[in-house]
């Protein structure tokens, strides 16, 4: 077995798995903080119960995010030691800063928040969950600073046989991170919004939870009305930007083999990657140019032309990512994003016209909708990471050059199997617990101890 392939598979599995939990943490930390702030300002005990009910679910999810995050920090060194050596001078700093600035903050204050209900004044207690929310989102920012360096390397020089940092502020102001972070941020909010909306819908159907649930539903509805369109818009902004800096990724996402002007948008394409053409290709003429340039003209380069350009610039080799995977990951993400915005708008319509209770099927539909943001989140990362291949750092280091030379296939196979088994088991436990507590009485007294 090839240690490179297995290491890639392990990184993909552990990262996608980690990112099941992260967006919910990012968004729900803020949502719970808002709820507790409402409690502090109004003194209404309902909001305290609300905070504690959603807080319980937040904590279960948070634990999964934290423990799977440790693996992320370690496996750059474990499986990608050549990568770590080559770019460590640049890439290590944001990771270390993440730990010092953000991870200490969220982990320390989460403990204070959970155990501190009777030990701190109300305002101070609410401040601790805000610090958790700030810590989590700051943590995401620094991770994305690191990832953005892989997508669009800036602030470095190639010297002494490695990439050395030349300008730290260029890393922080990398335009890539400033289109990427807002998208991740709003996607986190959207994930949390639909989570609260779906579970509230369950309780509305069961007529449990009373006012607390009606308020939660309304907060979450307003929440997704704002966050889901913003998530889509920031995502689109990222696509427009990517066309400039990583045209190959966008061409793969559209299964666009030939350069087109004006360019067509794919409705359904089934690619034959070996023959470099589409077997099935249903496209909207000119639509892609509209999306990228907001007018009926504009050139979008195709995969074949980009491949030829890359060969000229970087030497012989294939620079084409896995087109089918990238294409479907992108379709899934963008398609479901539209569904979510539609659900939010329809929910608003039903709420304003006071028809929510009568359209029970919509409430039923909101329950499985909880999982939709998770699919779009994974799809987004698959586009980002698969679409960058064969590069590990775009333009100067290939993934195959980054793998640890000391690893054998069997060693990585052992870890891959172990991680997959443990992660799989934990997913079942996590779903069991989330379901159990999501269904529990929202007005029940919460314990502030293990």
């Amino acid at each position, binding site marked *: 077995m090839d240690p490179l392939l297995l290491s890639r598979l392990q990184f993909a599995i552990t990262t996608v798995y980690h990112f099941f939990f992260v967006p919910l943490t990012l968004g729900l930390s803020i949502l719970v903080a808002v709820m507790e702030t409402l409690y502090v300002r109004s003194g209404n005990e309902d909001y305290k119960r609300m905070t504690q009910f959603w807080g319980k679910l937040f904590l279960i999810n948070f634990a999964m995010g934290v423990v799977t995050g440790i693996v992320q920090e370690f496996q750059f060194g474990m499986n990608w030691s050549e990568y770590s050596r080559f770019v460590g001078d*640049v890439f290590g700093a944001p990771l270390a800063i993440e730990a010092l600035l953000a991870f200490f903050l969220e982990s*320390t204050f989460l403990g204070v928040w959970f155990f501190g209900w009777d030990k701190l004044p109300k305002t101070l207690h609410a401040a601790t969950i805000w610090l958790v929310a700030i810590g989590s989102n700051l943590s995401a920012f620094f991770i994305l600073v690191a990832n953005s360096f892989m997508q669009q390397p800036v602030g470095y020089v190639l010297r002494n046989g490695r990439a050395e940092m030349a300008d730290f502020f260029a890393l922080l102001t990398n335009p890539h991170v400033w289109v990427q972070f807002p998208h991740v941020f709003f996607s986190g909010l959207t994930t949390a919004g639909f989570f609260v909306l779906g579970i509230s819908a369950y309780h509305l159907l069961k007529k449990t939870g009373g006012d607390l649930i009606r308020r939660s539903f309304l907060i979450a509805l307003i929440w997704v009305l704002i966050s889901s369109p913003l998530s889509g818009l920031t995502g689109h902004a990222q696509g427009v930007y990517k066309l400039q800096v990583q045209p190959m990724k966008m061409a793969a996402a559209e299964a666009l083999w030939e350069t087109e002007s004006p360019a067509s948008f794919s409705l359904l394409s089934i690619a034959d990657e070996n023959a470099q053409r589409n077997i099935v290709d249903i496209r909207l003429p000119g639509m892609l140019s509209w999306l990228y340039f907001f007018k009926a003209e504009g050139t979008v380069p195709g995969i074949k032309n980009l491949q030829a350009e890359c060969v000229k610039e970087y030497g012989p080799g294939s620079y084409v990512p896995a087109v089918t995977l990238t294409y479907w990951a992108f379709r899934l993400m963008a398609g479901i994003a539209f569904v979510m915005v539609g659900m939010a708008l329809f929910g608003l319509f039903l709420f304003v016209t006071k028809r929510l209770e009568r359209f029970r099927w919509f409430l039923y539909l909101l329950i499985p909708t909880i999982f939709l943001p998770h699919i779009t989140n994974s799809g987004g990362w698959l586009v980002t990471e698969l679409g960058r291949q064969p590069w590990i750092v775009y333009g100067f280091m290939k993934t195959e050059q980054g793998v640890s030379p000391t690893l054998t296939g069997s060693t990585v196979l052992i870890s891959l199997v172990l991680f997959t088994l443990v992660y799989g088991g934990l997913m079942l436990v996590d779903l069991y617990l989330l379901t159990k507590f999501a269904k529990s009485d929202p007005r029940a007294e919460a314990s502030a101890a293990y």
Partner: protein
Amino acid sequence: MDLNTLWFILIGMLFTGFFLLEGFDYGVGILLPFLGKEDEDRRVILNSIGPFWDGNEVWMIAAGGAMFAAFPHWYATMFSGFYLALVLMLLALILRGVAFEFRSKDQHPGWRNFWDAMIFFGSLVPALLWGIALANLIQGVPIDARKNFVGGFFTLLTPYTLLFGVYMLVLVMLHGAIFLCLKTESTMADQARAAARRLWLPAVALLIAALAASYQVTDAYKASIIPLIGSIALLGSGWNIKDKRDGWAFCMTAITIVTTVATVFLALFPRVMVSTLNPAWSLTIYNASSTSYTLTIMTIVALIFVPIILLYQGWTYWVFRKRVTRQAM
């Protein structure tokens, strides 16, 4: 002092913070099945470390991140070289971390016993493995001219590294037992004190053995009188345990942990990993480091944020200073 030395010291401090703080919660986790016969007792034990363990664990994450940023070759060589050991440790930490959150979420005794077992193994395995890892840094491992570790999993397990690992394990158990004396009352505190008294002699014996072996196979002499201070502190902790001065006893084991990590780092300096194949192939704070530019940026960040972290983590210990009792839960 140059920045390379400063970062060597800072990473040593992060590891010290990790062993000092996470040390007691590992110890408490290992003692859980022995001191908690009933569920209520186990809850008391777990809640004594409840508000702290997650923040404590970040010291390790920060140490790893700092290694990556300041000494990328150290991070790359050690993490790829100790691959399977780290996989084991990660799995242990994963199961331990969720166990704290999950165990109380269901009443079923089988459920609780399972997660308690995860807390036990999840505390024991990392405590042992980190001890073994530190010992391997100073004993030396086969590192070739290209800075790659060329041994296997069993290369890491020598009589010396195992002895050192067991020493660290028993030391954090003692440290954890004393922490429990401080954080609990009546019967539980008495039981924890009895455990501490039983653990003390093995800890002293292991310290002496580990120290003697360190002088044989490593450059521990470079630590001069530091190990002596740690040894005296460990002896002093026994006397304080006997006289029920738990606070003093805790300070004493804390000193022993600090001096142990300090000894390892002083024996290493200026190397960060010793090569057994050729002394010239050892990784040092110079040939494994980042540029002075990166170290400068990291220094500014660390000088601002480490004091803030110390302040707010210190504050949490003050907020949760009360002893944990069955009634208070």
